[in-house]
């Protein structure tokens, strides 16, 4: 089996976000790292919406990012620390819209290693040097400068290593223009390692160390080292030079300390939430923060692990700091990075869940929130009582949200709504922010207006009055026997004095020339001049106009019988008929002329579709007007045509490719390249859109031309980041559409559906799925579908949290101790503020039934007595033939490390009639945590710790029928087909077992030679298993067919039973047939089809929100082709972060039988000469290669 990997949705997590002027303009941008991807975002200052400008796959793990600006420069560079063993400096090229590698310097081995730098990056605020550090020992300092041509230069690295030293954090100190200084938070373990008594360990100190780069001597020295709080975890630089006193804020558990060389330290506690349930012994740490400087003042926003943001300010005179002050600011989701934009936004890159953009409404200066100052806390070491009351947002206001699936814990691909494509049902999120999400393939739209019309219209157009108008003035709606004109203003109202003929249906409307309007109706053409003079052209005899195509200067109409009449606007604004008419051989079904190119008189081509299943391109040049230039035969009559220039050439923003889109009556959309000189048609791509004839409309999306294609569902063909996308819209079936712009809706679409007029806008371009969200209360673990009712049953369990009963018990105990508290403190919404932390070993858990169609919870059962649910399945027991039972495996007092519990339970539930509720039948105790459950031959197969058991249902409990303990550690996943059982162990990969009915035994006969830490698996056929492990690998293992047959044909079963083990395991071994490093921990794999009529593929999801597919190749030629292409791509487009692509995909084991489609798709981004070079090597044309790459995607997925 040879597979092609494609990402459908890249990771949605963000591990670092930085802000800067990356395009060198006034506007600030945000660069985010989605671990394996680099993305550039822009926050629109007016609308407050985030917009993705660029996303690029880095094929490596980006661990740190920092913006960097040379002294006196106006453009920020991006420095990337990754797993490549290299430092990479990138520059954003605004013209080409891509990241360009400025420097790439190798310093060590690749991989996320202990002593290879890449984890920490710190820059000198004045832009003179950068430090890149590892977790242990190594720190390298590079001096950055510019050469005579103002190019960025990088020096050879200077070492600031210190062996036996762990580094917690590393920043660049602000020292003005003195020698650059870097501050590191370090721990030396050499003494602790040597002293068995433990004294040295106890006296180990955490040190704040300053490393000074002496620019004169070109040398790094340890300048100063001072012990800090033993639980310090983060540093923040305090502005220096002219802007402030310089120094660092050291964040530690419960305290924030100001430190600097030769000045006394100042300390302030981190205020805690006033909450009766809090554990006062639990320390509170700062997890993220940002410093903001403006007009001579600066402040810090620091976020605690609860999500509370504090505003920290320093009270200082000259270089002397008198006090640090801290006050509660607001509560937002816990962030991986916080970014403040000068336009007044705070970007919160959440560590889990959706990322958010907030706008500042105030800076929290003048509210009555209590403030704590270091003056009050100078000496008190104990009993810090800084408490605040959390509240709703006061200083921030939510502006926008980036949806994120991270962490994606489990998913299923099902088609419950009988759509064209299946939906993905996913469990996402952590804690109280957990969600159940229904993902549908399609672009999300935001509906602006729906208004009823007096009948069922046929068509709708919008038009401006003058060619330089910014907004549309009229909406024209055509009915069977009338035309309605609506004016667009504050409200949309009918107008009658527009010059449009209202008593007839309309065929086309267009704004003509500078200030005229055009209406085409079956009996003629009305040319409405600006002064309301109307020139009319009537059709000859009894013939009617059947089709029309117009642009700003040209009009083409088709009369009944297939006669074409061509008009062109002259310089006086007069519409002139071309003297000759063209007779087509058959009836014309559709027409299209392209837009007039900028600076030209006319569009040179006319496309005519006829019912003889052909499309012809006719010339509109004065030399050979209406001459046929080329013809394309079709499989069905064309319904609609659209000539359009798409901006899909990345290198030149003003030029695109001319395409002819052909919508066929059988629901297929063809896209053909139209040569701008000869008019010949080449490189046809096709796609099935739906069951109805495809109608095409030209619209504008993000300022670029796009095509709205309407079939049984609406689709949009648009360019995004210089790539063509064809994506369905998640919306109702539409009849007709047109572009729409108004002051309220700068870029929208007006469409008709039955008797309504809809106005909507397309947002979030580039997203593949749109999501419906159902809120959950704890971290979801697994879920199953109850097929009769189509409800989902989800189990949720949360460590370190109070269950409702435990919460009540703790509160009662507090009250009986005589403590008093304000009950409103407990009313905080858990979605915003999270659930209070209890202590390790305390669990909250529940079973929930969700109706995915209504989006609500029909029933919820909370577990009490510190039980947590871990596994779930639906079983049809033999003895109760027609009933489905729900079995849930739980554990009481579960402990994470070591994995223990006081007792496990298997709950058996019956569904009530409509499947909305559960009745507990009985519960069965077991000795370990049941992590895997599976229906098996009318019984229940359960993996309880390392024991694999078969249970049958009894009257009062489940009855144990059979057991094997031959699994090494812990069973996490089970599969079965016939008598074969596949058991997945937590650490020891997969085991093939056979159930022997006559003597009721389970015998393991084959296992794997690689010790994989399995997270998820799926059986793709009787002998083959695909799975993922905790290190981000994907693999397929197969049992050799001779072993498989041998085992199945063994009549007594004695042979496998008494066979000798091999390599300290089972007698047979499975063979690995493919292996691939995905870069994300896989959480589910499914064998399914994603497109109607497509082939079966493997769909996977990863914890970081990744959704991808593995497509099996069908022919040997394809394999050779893509392997060669991949090889060329590795050479021609080396990954952005400096990682070697082949090494990355072979992170833990060499990649086997998988081609990276994401890399192949980067072919489209290459400059033309490289495209051509690779194409020559492959003996093909670039267009052929692009077509093959696209086909690979659209045939199997989207």
């Amino acid at each position, binding site marked *: 089996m040879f597979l092609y990997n494609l990402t459908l949705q890249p990771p949605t997590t963000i591990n670092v976000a930085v802000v800067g002027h990356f395009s060198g303009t006034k506007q600030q941008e945000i660069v985010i790292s989605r671990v394996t991807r680099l993305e550039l975002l822009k926050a629109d200052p007016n609308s407050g919406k985030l917009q993705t400008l660029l996303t690029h796959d880095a094929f490596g793990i980006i661990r740190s990012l920092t913006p960097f600006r040379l002294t006196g420069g106006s453009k920020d560079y991006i420095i990337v620390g990754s797993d490549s063993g290299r430092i990479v400096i990138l520059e954003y090229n605004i013209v080409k819209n891509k990241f360009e590698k400025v420097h790439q310097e190798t310093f060590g081995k690749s991989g996320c290693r202990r002593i290879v730098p890449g984890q920490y990056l710190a820059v000198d605020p004045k832009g003179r040097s950068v430090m890149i550090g590892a977790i242990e020992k190594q720190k390298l300092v590079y001096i950055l400068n510019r050469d005579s041509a103002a190019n960025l230069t990088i020096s050879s690295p200077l070492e600031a290593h210190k062996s036996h030293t762990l580094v917690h954090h590393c920043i660049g100190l602000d020292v003005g223009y003195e020698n650059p200084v870097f501050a590191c938070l370090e721990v030396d373990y050499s003494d602790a390692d040597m002293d*068995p008594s433990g004294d040295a360990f106890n006296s180990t100190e955490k040190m704040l160390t300053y490393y000074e780069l002496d620019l004169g001597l070109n040398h790094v020295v340890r300048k100063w080292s001072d012990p800090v709080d033993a639980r310090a975890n983060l540093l923040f630089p305090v502005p220096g030079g002219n802007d402030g006193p310089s120094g660092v804020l050291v964040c530690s558990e419960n305290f924030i300390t100001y430190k600097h060389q030769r000045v006394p330290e100042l300390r302030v506690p981190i205020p805690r939430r006033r909450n009766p349930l809090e554990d006062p012994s639990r320390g509170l740490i700062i997890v993220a923060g940002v410093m903001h400087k403006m007009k001579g003042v600066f402040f810090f926003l620091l976020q605690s692990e609860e999500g509370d943001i504090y505003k920290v300010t320093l009270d200082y005179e000259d270089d002397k700091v008198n006090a640090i002050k801290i006050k509660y600011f607001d509560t937002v989701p816990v962030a991986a990075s916080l970014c403040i934009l000068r336009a007044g936004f705070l970007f919160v890159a959440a560590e889990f869940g959706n990322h958010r953009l907030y706008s500042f409404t105030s800076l929290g200066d003048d509210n009555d929130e209590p403030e704590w100052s270091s003056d009050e806390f100078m000496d008190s070491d104990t009993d810090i009582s800084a408490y605040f009351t959390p509240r709703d947002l006061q200083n921030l206001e939510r502006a926008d949200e980036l949806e994120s699936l991270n962490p994606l814990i489990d998913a299923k691909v099902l088609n419950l709504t009988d759509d064209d494509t299946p939906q993905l049902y996913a469990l996402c999120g952590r804690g109280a922010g957990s969600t159940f999400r229904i993902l549908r393939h399609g672009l999300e739209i935001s509906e602006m207006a729906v208004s009823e019309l007096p009948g069922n219209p046929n068509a709708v157009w919008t038009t401006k009055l003058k060619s330089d108008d910014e907004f549309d003035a009229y909406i024209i709606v055509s009915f069977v026997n009338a035309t309605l004109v609506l004016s667009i203003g504050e409200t949309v109202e009918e107008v009658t004095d527009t010059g449009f003929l209202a008593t007839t249906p309309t065929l086309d409307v267009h704004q003509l020339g500078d200030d005229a309007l055009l209406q085409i109706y079956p009996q003629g053409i009305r040319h409405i001049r600006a002064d309301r003079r109307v020139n009319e052209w009537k059709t000859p005899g009894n013939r009617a106009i059947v089709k029309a195509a117009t642009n700003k200067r040209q009009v083409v109409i088709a009369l009944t019988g297939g006669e074409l009449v061509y008009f062109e606007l002259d310089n006086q604004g007069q519409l002139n008929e071309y003297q000759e008419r063209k007779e087509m051989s058959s009836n014309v079904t559709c027409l299209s002329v392209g837009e007039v190119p900028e600076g030209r008189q006319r569009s040179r081509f006319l496309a005519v579709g006829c019912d003889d299943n052909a499309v012809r391109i006719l010339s509109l040049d004065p030399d050979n007007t209406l001459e046929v230039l080329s013809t394309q035969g079709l499989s069905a009559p064309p319904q609609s045509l659209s000539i359009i220039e798409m901006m899909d050439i990345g290198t030149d923003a003003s030029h695109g490719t001319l395409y002819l889109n052909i919508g066929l009556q059988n629901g297929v959309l063809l896209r053909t390249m139209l040569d701008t000189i000869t008019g010949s048609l080449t490189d046809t791509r096709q796609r099935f859109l739906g069951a109805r004839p495809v109608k095409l409309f030209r619209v504008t999306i993000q300022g670029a031309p796009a095509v709205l294609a309407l079939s049984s569902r609406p689709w949009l063909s648009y360019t995004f980041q210089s790539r063509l996308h064809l994506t369905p819209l998640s919306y109702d079936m539409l009849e007709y559409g047109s572009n729409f712009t108004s002051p309220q809706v700068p870029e929208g679409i007006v469409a008709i559906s039955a008797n309504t007029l809809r106005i909507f806008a397309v947002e979030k371009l580039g997203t593949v799925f749109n999501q419906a969200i159902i809120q959950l209360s704890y971290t979801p673990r697994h879920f199953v579908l109850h097929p009769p009712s189509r409800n989902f049953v989800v189990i949720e369990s949360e460590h370190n949290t109070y269950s409702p009963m435990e919460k009540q018990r703790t509160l009662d105990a507090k009250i009986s101790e005589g403590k008093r508290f304000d009950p409103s403190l407990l009313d905080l919404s858990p979605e915003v503020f999270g659930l209070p932390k209890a202590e390790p070993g305390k669990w909250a858990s529940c079973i929930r039934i969700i109706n995915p169609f209504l989006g609500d919870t029909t029933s919820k059962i909370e577990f009490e007595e510190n039980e947590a649910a871990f596994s779930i399945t639906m079983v049809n027991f033999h003895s109760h033939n027609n009933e489905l039972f729900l079995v849930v495996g739980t554990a009481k007092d579960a402990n994470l490390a070591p994995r223990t519990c006081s007792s496990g339970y298997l709950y058996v539930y019956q569904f009530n009639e409509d499947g909305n509720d559960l009745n507990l039948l009985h519960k069965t105790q077991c000795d370990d945590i049941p992590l895997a459950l599976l229906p098996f031959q009318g019984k229940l197969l359960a993996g309880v710790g390392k024991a694999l058991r078969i249970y049958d249902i009894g009257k009062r409990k489940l009855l144990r029928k059979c057991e094997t303990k031959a699994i090494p550690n812990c069973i996490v996943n089970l599969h079965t087909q016939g008598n074969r059982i596949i058991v997945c162990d937590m650490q020891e990969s997969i085991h093939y077992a056979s159930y022997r009915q006559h003597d009721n035994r389970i015998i393991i006969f084959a296992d794997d030679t690689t010790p994989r830490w399995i997270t998820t698996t799926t059986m793709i056929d009787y002998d083959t298993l695909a799975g993922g492990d905790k290190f981000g690998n994907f693999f397929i293992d197969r049992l050799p067919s001779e072993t498989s047959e041998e085992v199945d044909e063994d009549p007594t079963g004695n042979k496998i039973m008494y066979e000798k083990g091999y390599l300290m395991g089972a007698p047979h071994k499975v063979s690995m047939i493919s292996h691939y490093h995905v870069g994300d921990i896989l959480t589910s794999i499914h064998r399914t089809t994603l497109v109607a009529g497509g082939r079966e593929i493997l769909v996977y999801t990863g914890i970081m929100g990744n959704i991808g597919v593995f497509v099996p190749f069908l022919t040997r030629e394809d394999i050779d082709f893509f392997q060669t292409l991949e090889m060329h791509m590795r050479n021609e487009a080396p990954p952005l972060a400096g990682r070697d692509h082949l090494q990355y995909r072979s992170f833990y084991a060499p990649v086997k039988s998988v081609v990276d489609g994401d890399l192949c798709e980067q072919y489209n981004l290459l400059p033309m000469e490289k495209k051509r070079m690779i194409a020559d090597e492959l003996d093909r044309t670039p267009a052929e290669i692009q077509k093959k790459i696209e086909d690979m995607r659209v045939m199997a997925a989207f």
Partner: protein
Amino acid sequence: MDRFNLNSQLEHLQSKYVGTGHADTNKFEWMVNQHRDSYASYIGHHSLISYFAVAQNESIARVKFEFVEKMLQPCGLPVPRDE
């Protein structure tokens, strides 16, 4: 290659790459190295650290912090060397 040179090369490796073994490496030292390497790898791989954070219901920054803390003495007190 003569014996003397080999020794100096080994020493160079040991000083350059933390955790390079030598003839007297005991089980404890080996174990400590394994653990420190593992923790460093967990911290570096964002997907793994998220996995831990979800299981423990702690923030990623907290898990990272605790891991670096644990690297100081991952396997308890060192065992005395028997000379």
